[in-house]
């Protein structure tokens, strides 16, 4: 859903000031040291005395009714301490909640975690076992007898939308059409957003181009497989250590799914080995808790890579149509798009978010966007960096490239001519505030990359992207030690490494002390007020809002202590450069007191200096980026080599520039992998054929050039330091940019993702039939 700040949400307005720390390199990155020495602890690295190993039995079928489950033989295996199935979990009614950038429905969440009436995809859990060893657990899994009635399945989005397609949910009637249909459908929802008069817009155009595009699902591909360890104590307390992007949301979901009081559950987010949106959903956690309750032992569960691919993530596979009209002089008059997005086994894809991003980089008066959320026999989709946006950007930016050529403009000038600016009306509602899109285009145009010469079979492509910055509930606590050093407990998860350092820098800037004196860690769910998922690029953006508030709280308290020492009013004390000082000479002639001085004496003068924040952060401040890529196409094999890549993006304010570059580069490389090679491949039977890194090919070092990055800074007016979310935009443009580059290298346009060698070669062959056809 589009982030709409509520009337009670907080924003601290941007204030221009001289910065000492924000915008530099921190003196150290403590998390990185623990990572290079192997000391950082990820979820799978936790062990508890007496722990059991939990394993999941998964459906081998794409779609089947579960007639019966017989666990007797499994329970009899020596060393097996608990077996659970659907009977061990309460059924849930329809109830929607936000989980990251996607919406969830508890009725579905419980069914996804453990199948009830039916299994909906290859890899869907049907039972789980806890045993003293992995081998005993595996042995038990083999002995569980599940009787299935195999049903016809549907994998592909277009096929799933047909009226005669096998239906996943008999009780799903398309929402958003009037009147509500009487026949169930795999189309869960139809959404529409409109601006102006689309027909009139196309009438004004001199050139209209309409194209269809298809993309395959891709996986987040984090290197750390999901892992959880749960301990249900005899006293009824539940402790969970897990790989998550949002332990507070996980606690809420565990509580709901297992009907437990939240106060009895403590979830600790372990160091996270990558998530990119894929660790926004519970999978193992409720199973581990119930296995632990049943066995009265701690239970550890770690997914195999095969399970990660078959049962977590991926993104939607999509089918989209894009139609855009322009005048002879290059002004876009109308844009229309249809987005058909797979949600997997249960409704709730990224289509609502994607629909908002379709044309929101351009100033277009007449827009019509229609989206469909479509269920099919694949794992329920999860968010993946700017969920849904890369697929539709592929369509829109490809058509824009054709139009630019059609009206004889270069791709950047064409985009500049139509670029959204402050005040541009979006097609989904609000007018845009101050944004840096034009600046990214201008920097791209002036970049030396544009002057690099291209050889035969080489081409250059350009594309752009847009994404929001999410605010939402964010809490933080800051405690000043008696020596003046500072601990900050944050409630978001440092999903990128470096997030802790960025927050430490903001706190150090506020307090006027060196960054090394500030230590930031993630607190468990008992330590703080609620925190929403670390998603929507909000980690540093929203996290720093809470830490700024907490810092200012602490400063207030420090000033109070100084006032007591000097026996003046608190209002007569100001905080400058890490010291309390008299507000004016009238107050008196006092030596400034440092935070350390004050902290030492605070105990007897009102108590520890501390600050805290429990905010519903109002955000906004969307980010925009422009990418340029050069490729070379091998006409004999269809292989595409990426020669050069440049990315320009508005960060609002780069707190920790190296860390932002890292996000830019990492996101772009994920986008390149998505564009060129990554895809889910299904067999006729509806089973996943490539559930491993051997055949699901993510880029290695030699696949990618060095990514050049350029940071543009147009401050976000709703943030005290002007910060925008930056993590997601970089993944949006690559598919489109690469496809455009391939066109300029070969004259062939690809509209079918991935742009893999077989597809490129086939397209080249079609354009110039090869000898094989003779």
């Amino acid at each position, binding site marked *: 859903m589009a982030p709409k700040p509520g009337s009670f949400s907080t924003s601290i307005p941007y204030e221009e000031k001289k910065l000492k720390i924000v915008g530099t390199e921190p003196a150290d990155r403590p998390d990185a040291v623990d990572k290079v020495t192997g000391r950082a602890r990820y979820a799978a690295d936790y062990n508890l005395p007496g722990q059991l190993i939990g394993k999941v039995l998964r459906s081998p079928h794409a779609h089947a009714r579960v007639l019966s489950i017989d666990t007797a033989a499994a329970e009899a295996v020596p060393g097996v301490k608990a077996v659970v199935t659907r009977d061990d979990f309460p059924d849930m009614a329809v109830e929607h909640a936000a989980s990251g950038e996607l919406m969830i429905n508890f009725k579905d969440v419980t069914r996804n975690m453990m199948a009830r009436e039916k299994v909906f995809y290859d890899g869907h859990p049907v039972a789980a076992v806890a045993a003293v060893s992995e081998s005993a657990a595996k042995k038990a899994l083999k002995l569980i007898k599940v009787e299935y009635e195999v049903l016809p399945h549907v994998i592909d989005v277009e096929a799933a939308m047909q009226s005669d397609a096998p239906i996943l949910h008999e009780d799903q009637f398309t929402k958003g059409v009037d009147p509500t249909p009487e026949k169930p459908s795999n189309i869960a929802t139809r959404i529409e957003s409109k601006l102006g008069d689309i027909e009139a817009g196309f009438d004004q155009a001199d050139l209209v181009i309409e194209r269809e595009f298809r993309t395959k699902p891709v996986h987040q591909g984090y290197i750390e497989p999901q892992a959880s360890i749960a301990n249900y104590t005899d006293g009824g307390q539940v402790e969970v250590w897990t790989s998550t992007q949002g332990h507070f949301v996980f606690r809420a979901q565990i509580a709901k799914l297992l009907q437990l009081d939240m106060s009895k559950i403590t979830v600790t987010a372990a160091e996270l080995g990558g998530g990119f949106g894929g660790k926004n959903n519970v999978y193992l956690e409720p199973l581990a808790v119930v296995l632990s309750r049943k066995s009265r032992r701690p239970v550890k569960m770690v997914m195999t890579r095969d399970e990660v691919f078959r049962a977590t993530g991926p993104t939607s596979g999509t089918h989209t149509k894009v139609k855009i009209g322009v005048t002879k002089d290059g002004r876009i008059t109308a844009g229309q798009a249809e987005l058909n997005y797979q949600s997997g086994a249960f409704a709730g894809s990224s289509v609502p978010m994607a629909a908002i991003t379709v044309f929101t980089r351009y100033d277009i008066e007449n827009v019509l966007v229609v989206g469909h959320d479509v269920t099919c026999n694949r794992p329920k989709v999860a968010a993946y960096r700017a969920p849904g946006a890369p697929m539709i950007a592929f369509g829109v930016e490809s058509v824009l490239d054709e139009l630019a050529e059609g009206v004889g403009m270069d791709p950047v000038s064409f985009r500049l001519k139509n670029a959204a600016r402050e005040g541009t009306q979006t097609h989904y509602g609000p007018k845009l505030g101050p944004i840096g899109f034009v600046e990214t285009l201008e920097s791209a145009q002036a970049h030396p990359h544009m002057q690099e010469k291209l050889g035969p079979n080489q081409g250059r492509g350009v594309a752009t992207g847009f994404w929001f910055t999410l605010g939402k509930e964010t809490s933080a606590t800051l405690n000043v030690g008696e020596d003046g050093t500072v601990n900050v407990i944050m409630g978001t998860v440092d999903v990128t490494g470096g997030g802790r350092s960025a927050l430490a820098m903001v706190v150090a800037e506020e307090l006027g002390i060196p960054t090394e004196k500030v230590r930031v860690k993630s607190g468990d769910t008992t330590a703080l007020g609620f925190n929403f998922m670390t998603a929507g690029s909000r980690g540093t953006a929203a996290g720093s809002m809470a830490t700024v508030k907490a810092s200012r709280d602490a400063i207030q308290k420090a000033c109070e202590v100084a006032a007591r020492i000097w026996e003046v009013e608190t209002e007569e004390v100001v905080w400058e450069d890490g010291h309390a000082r008299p507000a004016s000479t009238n107050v008196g002639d006092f030596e400034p007191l440092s935070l350390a001085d004050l902290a030492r004496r605070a105990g007897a003068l009102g108590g520890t200096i501390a600050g805290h924040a429990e905010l519903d952060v109002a955000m906004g401040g969307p980010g925009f980026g422009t990418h340029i890529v050069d490729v070379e196409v091998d006409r004999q094999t269809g292989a595409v080599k990426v020669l050069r890549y440049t990315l320009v993006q508005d960060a609002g304010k780069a707190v920790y520039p190296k860390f932002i570059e890292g996000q830019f580069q990492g996101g772009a490389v994920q986008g390149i992998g998505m564009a060129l090679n990554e895809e889910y491949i299904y067999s006729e039977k509806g089973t996943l054929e490539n559930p491993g*890194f051997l055949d699901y090919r993510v880029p290695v070092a030699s696949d990618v050039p060095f990514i050049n990055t350029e940071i543009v800074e147009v401050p976000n007016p709703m943030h005290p330091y002007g910060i925008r979310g930056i993590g997601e935009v970089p993944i949006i443009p690559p598919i489109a940019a690469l496809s455009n580059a391939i066109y300029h290298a070969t004259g062939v346009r690809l509209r079918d993702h991935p742009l893999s*060698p077989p597809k490129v070669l086939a397209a080249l062959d079609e354009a110039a039939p*090869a000898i094989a056809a003779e």
Partner: protein
Amino acid sequence: MTSVRFVFGGKVVALDGIDPNMTVLSWLRTKVNKIGTKEGCAEGDCGACTVVLGELTQESGRERIRYRAVNACILFVAALDGKQLIVVEDLRQADGALHPVQQAMVDLHGSQCGFCTPGFVMSLFAMYRSEGQPDRARVNDVIAGNLCRCTGYRPIVDAAMAAYDGGRADQFSRRERQTVELLKSIARTETETLALEGAGRRYFAPVTEDALADLVKAHPEATLVAGGTDVGIWVTKHHQDLETVIHVGGVRDMDFVREVDGSMEIGAATTYTDAVHAIAGQYPDFGELIRRIGSVQIRNAGTIGGNVANGSPIGDSMPGLIALGATLVLRLGKQKRVLPLDQFYPGYRQTALKPGEYLSAIRVPLSQPGRHFHTYKISKRFDQDISAVCGAYCLDIAGGQVTRARVAYGGMAATPARAPQCEGALTGLAWTEDAVPVAMRALAQDFAPMDDMRATARYRLAVAQNLLQRLYLDIEGGAPTVLAPEASGQGMGA
């Protein structure tokens, strides 16, 4: 000998009764609580589990230690016997300072989420200990077996190069003499076959080929393991239970590359890493192809012998070996026989090995004037990927005419196979551009490839044919033939 002995943390560790199917990764993580080494896939694909093995070698008459990165997830603990195991927790210097490789990773932001980091650190550490300042292409090669999903690799490559700034001494070089002594103290003599029993399974690791021959003959049902890069996956991924294992990898007199009667003979226990140099010396293109098999970690463990014996239709060394007319030395007890490789595969994943027989060595004819050899691997990614198609061509060209042609492909049929129609069409043809379409058309008669998830039949055939165009250009241009991804876009912009 009934215990596995290796050097770990500066001491000799001796393990008795260890399950021969246990991997080094699971031993580290579950038996000795060394959790720094990560599991990302358990299939040799991601490199998160990378550890480094130190082995005794002779270097200009001196005893030295050679350091190599391997995947702990598919390496059996028993294979550590006689070696030094180094894991990420071992790298910190005695004074607590980070190892130069670790420090560079911190300083240059080579770690974001950090889950891949221990693996990268170990790959870079092995490089740091083994060779001088690398360039970017070399670093790409060294880390081709390590996946990072966060950084986009640039900061890691920067760190790899910057690690050398302060010279190359570390506590491993300083302690080398002591470690050499420890390793010597656990080296087995020729008669000491390691014989393990644990968890109801048996494991034999002979030191000499004669001992091996006897063992294989006595246990025809046993699974032979050379580097274990195929076999390891059977256990970790396919959950096979290997009752009896005989380790070929440690047989010292099968680890060689030597010249015999106009042929290069490669022992079946020789790793890719050890064989590549000699092979590249004869056939540069073959050397390049081997540099693209798996990753450094895979090539440090895997053998050409294992590749040939495994008999996968997409094994990358076989098309080249077949095109070159390689023969195999097979041994059963004391009996040896020699079989041309193109007669070794009766069917899909079948070999001509008899019960109790094994592959002893591979013989490859030496290069000769007028003979042109090229081989190409086509896969989605340049590095560390499975072939969709692998083609190999050995043409004798005299007076502008093809006098002899051997053409072989992998990925086009149930076994690696020759292309007789194509060979026939080429033989006697004038070697001009016009020969190419003739050969391409003939090739279409040779194979009816399959559709699978790695490529369609149509793509396979089209590429197999197009490779003949590349062959022509390469022979005419005399150019190196591998499309190495060069360092482009470097130093530009930001």
